[in-house]
């Protein structure tokens, strides 16, 4: 995000006159509304906001946001966004991508925008499928996923978007669910973060991969399956009503998390870990927790800002320019020159 003057807007101000063309019931609708609801709360200014996307269902997003928008080519949105930020660091850039766009064809660019730490919010809609091309398996599809291109089930191992982001050097990693009421909070934290903020959003493709996240995303039983993280707060999940309050404790011998029961709300007694969002090692452990044995970690997993790429580029440019002669005539006559005097014709 950027320190620009905040302005007052409503959700309606962020809607375009374009008909939204996602399938009825698609998780993208919920994300669109969450973003349109969040931006007024941030005081965001439509004229300084740019949504940049690649190709895929998620990448239609810019057409529905009443701001500046650039629907680019498959996988390359991070490169366009990097150029935009270098040219005008004051713009508030949101990048919209998906699991295919961002981690398959665009995996390389995703890695580099994260390691460079270009200041923007990156929303990766993960639906574990290629929707717009009619349902082929994606790099995040689980093993044995049957699709038109894998009629016998996929055999390759899926990528873990948050682990990929951390491995690439991301300084902010968050997770949300399309329909979750907590999504705006994650978006807000990402926006507050100076630098590349990576947000994986579990998004339900109701046509090609319906309810694939139900294990933890379904409202019924969610409390037992979702661990919402907040900096400085204990890692607690579950409730008395749903089978007991539980927490994550760090086993320092095994250097691994373990699930513990919390009795009478006394999480300290149970040794539950307090989340430190600036701890990179903890973040790595959280994103690698096997679901099933552990709940799904959500919210702000990691948030530890570092200087941004565009700031470094501009500082270097300023340093290199200080006191230099910037006339073109001076530049053209640089190096070893010689002067020819007198008059002469120019024979061959």
């Amino acid at each position, binding site marked *: 995000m950027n320190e620009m003057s905040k302005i007052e807007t409503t959700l309606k101000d962020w809607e*375009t006159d*374009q008909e939204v063309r996602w399938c009825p019931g698609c998780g993208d609708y919920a994300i669109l509304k969450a973003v349109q609801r969040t931006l007024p709360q941030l005081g965001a200014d*439509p*004229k*300084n906001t*740019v949504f*940049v996307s690649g*190709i895929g269902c998620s990448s239609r997003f*810019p*057409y529905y*946001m009443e*701001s*500046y*928008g*650039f*629907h*680019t*080519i*498959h996988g*390359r949105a*991070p*490169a*366009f966004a*990097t*150029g*935009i930020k*270098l*040219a*005008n660091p*004051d*713009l508030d850039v949101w990048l919209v991508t998906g699991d295919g766009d961002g981690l398959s064809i665009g995996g*390389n*660019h995703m*890695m*580099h925008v994260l390691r460079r730490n270009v200041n923007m919010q990156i929303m990766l809609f993960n639906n574990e499928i290629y929707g717009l091309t009619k349902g082929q398996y994606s790099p995040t599809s689980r093993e044995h996923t049957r699709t038109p291109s894998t009629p016998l089930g996929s055999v390759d191992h899926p990528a873990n978007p948050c682990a990929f982001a951390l491995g690439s050097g991301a300084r902010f990693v968050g997770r949300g669910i399309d329909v979750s009421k907590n999504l705006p909070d994650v978006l807000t934290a990402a926006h507050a973060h100076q630098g590349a903020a990576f947000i994986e959003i579990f998004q339900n493709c109701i046509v090609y991969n319906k309810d694939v996240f139900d294990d933890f995303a379904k409202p019924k039983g969610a409390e037992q399956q979702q661990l919402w993280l907040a900096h400085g707060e204990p890692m607690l999940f579950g409730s008395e009503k749903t089978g007991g309050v539980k927490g994550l404790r760090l086993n320092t011998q095994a250097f691994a998390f373990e699930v513990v029961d919390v009795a009478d709300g006394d999480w300290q007694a149970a040794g539950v870990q307090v989340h430190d969002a600036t701890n990179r090692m903890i973040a790595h452990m959280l994103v690698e927790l096997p679901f099933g044995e552990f709940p799904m970690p959500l919210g702000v997993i990691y948030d530890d800002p570092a200087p941004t790429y565009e700031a470094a*580029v501009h500082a*270097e*440019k300023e340093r*290199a*320019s200080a006191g230099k002669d910037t*006339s*073109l*005539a001076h*530049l*053209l*006559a*640089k*190096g*070893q*020159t*010689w*002067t*020819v*005097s*007198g*008059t*002469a014709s*120019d*024979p*061959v």
Partner: protein
Amino acid sequence: MATQTAEAQPDTQVQDSMVVRFAGDSGDGMQLTGGQFTLSTALAGNDLATFPDFPAEIRAPQGTLFGVSAFQINFGSRQINTAGDAPDVLVAMNPAALKVNLASLKPGGLIIADSGAFTKRNLEKAHYDANPLEDGSLAKFDLLAFDISERTIEAVKPFGLGNKDALRSKNMWTLGLALWMFDRPREPLHEWLKDKFKKKPDIADANIAALDAGHAYGETAELSGPLKQVHMPARPVEPGLYRTITGAESVSLGLVAGAQLAELPMFFGGYPITPASAILHHLARLKEFDVTTFQAEDEIAAICAAIGASYAGQLGVTSSSGPGIALKTEAMGLGIMVELPLVIVNSQRGGPSTGLPTKTEQSDLYQAVYGRNGDAPLPVIAARSPADAFDVAIEACRIATQYMTPVMLLTDGYIANAAEPWKVPDPSAYEPFPATFLEGLPEGEEFLPYKRDAKGARPWVKPGTPGLMHRVGGIEKHETTGNIDYSPANHQRMTELRRDKIAGIDVPDQEVSWGEDTGDLVVVGWGSTYGPIKQAVNRWIEKGAKVSHVHVRHIWPLPKNLGELLSGFKHVLMPEMNTGQFKTLLRDQYLIDAESLTKTSGQPFQIAELEEAIGRCLDEKCGGRIRTNDDQLPNPVGVEQ
């Protein structure tokens, strides 16, 4: 800075031009030697053209044939347009260098060889059964063989360097000898060495000692051998300030000038590739001219970031060579679709695929004009020489910003690396073409992001502009609103609008570069073939032939008068360093019976090759062809008959 008068000094030993080739191992510093010799030639006021020819390997195994690096310079007191057909002097630092380069040496030419490097092992590596310096096989040349290695070691002995380090000064010894041969002052080299080795004064001193020793050797050897000092007067040229310039430098400076004339900051996205990287290197040092350089993660990101910067209101530029340009293709299509300014520099090299990374070719013309999915026209312009690349780069910036379109600028490996003297232009002589941004609309007027001006260009709106928020993208869009629109009539209309915008670009009329406006034969070229074509055509004009030279800068769209101009000639000959790509385009556009002369050896055309081909075309028997029907076609290599 040196000062000289344009008047040639009378001297009895005058030669009006000379071709020298320095050849050695790729680790011998031949490019550096050639570069410094070029500078001293320029300072002496000679016109010149150079041809650096080096292997793709950085340090190929020592002494091998494929590790030979050469630098050829043609210089004279008359106008020089090419790096010269055949060297008069060949400096061979080892047996491999001799073997690879001997065939091109003029009969009677001078060989200067380092006999110290003609060891048994090096002779074996160069596949010599006997030492050519001793077996009489070089009898038709003048041979000057002596132990440069040993003499260099001796010269630098006082500086306490080991043999290996001492031998690294061999190229300076050789350069010293060359300076003596052409009566050049050593002082500029002394200064250059002192500056280059500022932090290692003993290395500077050792190199200076080697240079001086080579020079002193020349004076002594003159008394007894084939070595003669040559005096070459300065070439009379237009008065003014001069410097030498390579194509890569020239493109870089032209881009900076172009961005300034457009009154825009420049954003340059690049990725390392031979021979285009030099442009990235030059621009990375020009930050004070409001230039941002971005070394991207790949070719695709380089162009995408440049388009992103253009979208945000800067002049986006990207640069590469054939294979990298191929990777950028999809993004070019987007640039065409969203109609944003972008300059794409293609320093062509031998292809296909990785091809010949360090050798020159003109084989990306189809790729430039046609090589995208869909009907995706963009303007293409080509530089004909290192100095010309400056003006062409400015022209590319003008077209890109005035017409809101990607533009491809073609140079090639030859232009990128070759140097020539350049009369430093006066920047105020160029007409500015300030870019305009739409910043608001009259009360009540609807904002239409794709509403075109008289030139067919849509408005450029920077994000951050109040009230003009809009979305762009690669999906077909409505003619005026830019909203997604797949309807049949709209796509038909948009395809035509994109085509017409490019076709309508204001391109200067084509002029005849050399010769009359009508005649028997016109030789049509583009790009780096300018020099040899000009010389060859001129030789035929001097013989009284009705031949002219037309050299096309604007490859697409073509100058409006070109078809008519060509129709004033009986025959059209088109030499190209490809299999006839521009010929295909001109045949298609004008239905002319153009004859192709093709060369794809990775080497530039020689004047003699073109002269001969022109002669064939002019021969009545041939009727404008290079060969008659009776001529036997050349036997393809490897085909037994």
